[in-house]
């Protein structure tokens, strides 16, 4: 086959090209022709097609994501905002923290182990590329019905993949989520988050500047992994029925990634790079065009210098390969030798593949012949933007009218007790330790809080005890009932979780998991959710630092519940002041903070007891969330509470059960006057938490709540070996533990 050079393309304008097979639309192909003033070469077509895929170009979501910048709250903590590999937040004492959550949904359905593993690998490289040492990971996961046979295939594979990769990298897993719902049956959601820490001066950006600087590709050899994966996997509705069309799966090598991390950190320490970019989706196409586009000048790459695992790869394939564990750095000529030396020390292959030029084009050569000559911005940053039509679905009104508050409630105390046990042992509410025990949460020796705490917390400075906390939350059921409120509830819950552990929320990242953007109903859900999230962040003062969008999570006509997952990052000045969820001391007083209203729409109770989804989700009051957060943070700082647990799905009873089981102590609860015990236990009103207050602190604590106007009701005391709801029922801890812990192993193990 003859090489399709730029010259050749100019001479053969009428050659048929497989743009449709590569996922491009007719008008997109025409646009490429008009940008270049000729037909693209095969290599150029490969680059444009992957970079203009939904996954890389955000073409359907961009117009909505803009709000995150436009409505961004004033916040001087934000050092690097949206648009880089990950946002960076100032956490004080000269430290900066970067974090981001990303999806690897489709690959994890095809090959659960490798899909999930490479999802972790990818997000870790994003964090590394910012100049940070990765210090923790989290994994928000969603699967189909817990008792569906395919869940038995997908879940153990995903969990083993996340553990297999993360454990081998030495990154503590400090939290995540596991949710089961039939809507995710053919579209499990595998989101992965990584947190990294650096000093302010160590921040690195993905840009190529300085003519004459060298472009170095380092890490694993390039093979035929996931060729076309980006465009085929992320842009088209996934169809399992044609195994022959399955694209090659990427296989991760966590050992190689660990070397890459240590090697890169050593390179940063010696200040050897000007710009750096990880290779993820779209591989070299993405890295070279993004680096060149973001920097000044152009770039020239000799593609034949790339170290290959498979010598038969064509230049197009090399450009599209998604081989894992690779990075691309821009290095001054005088520093190249030292750079290569450090790579050699860590057994990492490194090759100078090109240099920054003073031109404006990205030019790629194959054995001396030019195969790419493009303006890099048109590939990386000026892809197509769609204003997809959206419309409130016609079923939304009926769904909201189907009020969960009207569902039959337990008639007797005995029935209430039964329903409590049923909810607490349901797959979504049950203990997830069978899963989380497969993750190393201790490595690095800085873990302060990990599962099953409200947030994950790590110490980042051993001398001052400065720490950061992260929580991730999302509730697709709420978002299905009302995507605007659902996104805000995810934000509120995550914010509350961080505050409950004593950390001050600073900024957020998010992963927006939705169905097909070509369906106006899905697009409406997306528009509503992004608007809700942007408005919410403005009110809470927590800017969006970055995130990820995963679309086409649907099977046939049926989309998943809209599932915005929100990660909130907080800071705590002294990790010794953190607040755990465990009730560990008898006699401590239990206070319920916030207002409990009759809010059962989308609740765990409505799902478990009635298999029902309808009505409205709990009302959102972000000012109240903020106030609650301030109280929880002050209480932690001043030692007024011994334990705190946020209330969310499952309501008060779920929080009590978790805190009692964690601390091995019971609770005696008195139902306050004027509230129905069922509503007290199961309502999911937002803006609430339960805290355990030592008697010596009671006055100080209630004074503070009173002065700030936060409702605080004394509902009982830590005591005994049972949860005893007075006048209703009592459940011994042993029975509760069995109910809570046996479910997941019985279903999955």
């Amino acid at each position, binding site marked *: 086959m003859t090489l399709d050079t730029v010259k050749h393309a100019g001479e053969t304008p009428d050659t048929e090209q497989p743009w449709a097979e590569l996922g491009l639309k007719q008008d997109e192909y025409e646009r490429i022709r008009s940008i270049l003033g000729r037909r693209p070469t095969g290599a150029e077509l490969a680059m444009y097609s992957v970079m203009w895929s939904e996954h890389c170009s955000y073409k359907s979501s961009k117009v909505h994501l803009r709000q995150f910048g436009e409505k961004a709250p004033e916040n001087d903590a934000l050092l690097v905002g949206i648009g880089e590999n990950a946002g960076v937040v100032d956490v004080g004492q000269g430290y900066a923290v970067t974090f981001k959550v990303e999806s690897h949904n489709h690959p994890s359905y095809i090959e659960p182990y490798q899909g999930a593993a490479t999802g972790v690998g990818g997000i870790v490289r994003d964090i590394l590329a910012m100049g940070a040492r990765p210090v923790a990971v989290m994994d928000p996961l969603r699967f189909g019905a817990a008792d569906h046979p395919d869940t038995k295939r997908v879940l153990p594979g995903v969990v083993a993949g996340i553990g297999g990769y993360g454990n081998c990298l030495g990154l503590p897993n400090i939290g995540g989520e596991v949710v089961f719902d039939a809507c995710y049956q053919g579209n499990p959601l595998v989101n992965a988050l990584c947190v990294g820490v650096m000093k302010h001066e160590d921040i690195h950006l993905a840009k190529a500047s300085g003519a004459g600087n060298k472009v170095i590709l380092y890490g694993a050899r390039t093979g035929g992994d996931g060729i076309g994966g980006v465009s085929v996997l992320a842009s088209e509705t996934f169809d399992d029925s044609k195994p022959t069309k*399955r694209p090659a799966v990427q296989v991760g090598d966590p050992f*190689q990634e660990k070397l890459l991390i240590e090697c890169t950190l050593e390179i940063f320490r010696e200040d050897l790079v000007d710009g750096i970019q990880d290779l993820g989706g779209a591989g070299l196409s993405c890295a070279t065009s993004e680096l060149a586009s973001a920097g000044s000048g152009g770039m020239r790459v000799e593609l034949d210098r790339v170290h290959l695992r498979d010598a038969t790869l064509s230049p197009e394939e090399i450009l599209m390969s998604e081989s894992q564990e690779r990075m691309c750095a821009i290095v001054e000529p005088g520093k190249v030798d030292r750079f290569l030396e450090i790579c050699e020390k860590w057994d990492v292959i490194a090759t100078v593949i090109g240099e920054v030029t003073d031109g404006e084009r990205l030019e790629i050569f194959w054995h001396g012949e030019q195969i790419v000559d493009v303006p890099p911005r048109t590939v990386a940053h000026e892809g197509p933007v769609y204003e997809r039509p959206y419309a409130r679905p016609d079923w939304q009104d009926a769904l909201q009218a189907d009020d969960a508050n009207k569902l039959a409630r337990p008639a007797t105390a005995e029935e209430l007790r039964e329903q409590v046990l049923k909810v607490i042992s349901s797959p979504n509410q049950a203990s997830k330790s069978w899963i989380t025990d497969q993750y190393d949460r201790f490595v690095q020796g800085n873990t302060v809080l990990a599962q099953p705490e409200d947030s994950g917390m790590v110490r980042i400075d051993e001398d001052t005890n400065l720490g950061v906390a992260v929580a991730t939350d999302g509730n697709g059921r709420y978002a299905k009932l009302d995507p605007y409120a659902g996104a805000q509830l995810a934000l509120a819950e995550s914010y509350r979780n961080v505050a409950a552990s004593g950390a001050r929320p600073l900024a957020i990242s998010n992963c927006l998991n939705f169905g097909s953007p070509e369906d106006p109903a899905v697009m409406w859900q997306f528009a509503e959710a992004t608007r809700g999230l942007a408005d919410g962040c403005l009110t809470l003062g927590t800017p969006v630092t970055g995130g990820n969008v995963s679309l086409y999570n649907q099977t046939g006509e049926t989309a998943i519940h809209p599932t915005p997952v929100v990660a909130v990052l907080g800071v705590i000045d002294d990790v010794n002041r953190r607040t755990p969820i465990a009730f560990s001391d008898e006699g401590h007083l239990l206070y319920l903070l916030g207002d409990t209203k009759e809010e059962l729409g989308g609740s765990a109770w409505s799902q478990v007891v009635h298999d029902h989804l309808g009505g409205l989700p709990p009302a959102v009051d972000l000012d109240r969330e903020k106030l609650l957060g301030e109280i929880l943070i002050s209480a932690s700082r001043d030692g007024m509470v011994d334990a705190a647990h946020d209330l969310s799905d499952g309501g008060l009873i779920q929080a009590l059960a978790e805190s009692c089981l964690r601390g091995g102590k019971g609770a005696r609860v008195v139902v306050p006057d004027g509230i129905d015990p069922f509503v007290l236990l199961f309502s999911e009103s937002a803006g609430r938490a339960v805290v355990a207050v030592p008697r010596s602190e009671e006055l100080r604590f209630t004074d503070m709540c009173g002065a700030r106007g936060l409702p605080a009701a004394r509902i009982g005391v830590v005591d005994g070996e049972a949860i005893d709801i007075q006048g209703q029922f009592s459940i011994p801890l042993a029975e509760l533990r069995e109910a809570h812990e046996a479910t997941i192993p019985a279903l999955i193990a």
Partner: protein
Amino acid sequence: MARVVVDVMLKPEILDPQGQAVQRALPRLGFEGIADVRQGKRFELEVEGPVDDAALARIHEMAETFLANTVIENFTVRVDS
């Protein structure tokens, strides 16, 4: 009882980090001249009853659906003698 062996190897185009780690270690141990190493799995099945075509067909199906992950692996089935 007859023994049937199922060998499962990663497809050639799929990265094999384990095989690579072994290969890279060999020169350090003083073993030269090994150009490539691939590491896979070997299953030894003790089969009750005769290993006729029907039994082999079943084992083939078992390998395809269960022992190997055909997204990334190839396999072979053979009777051990």
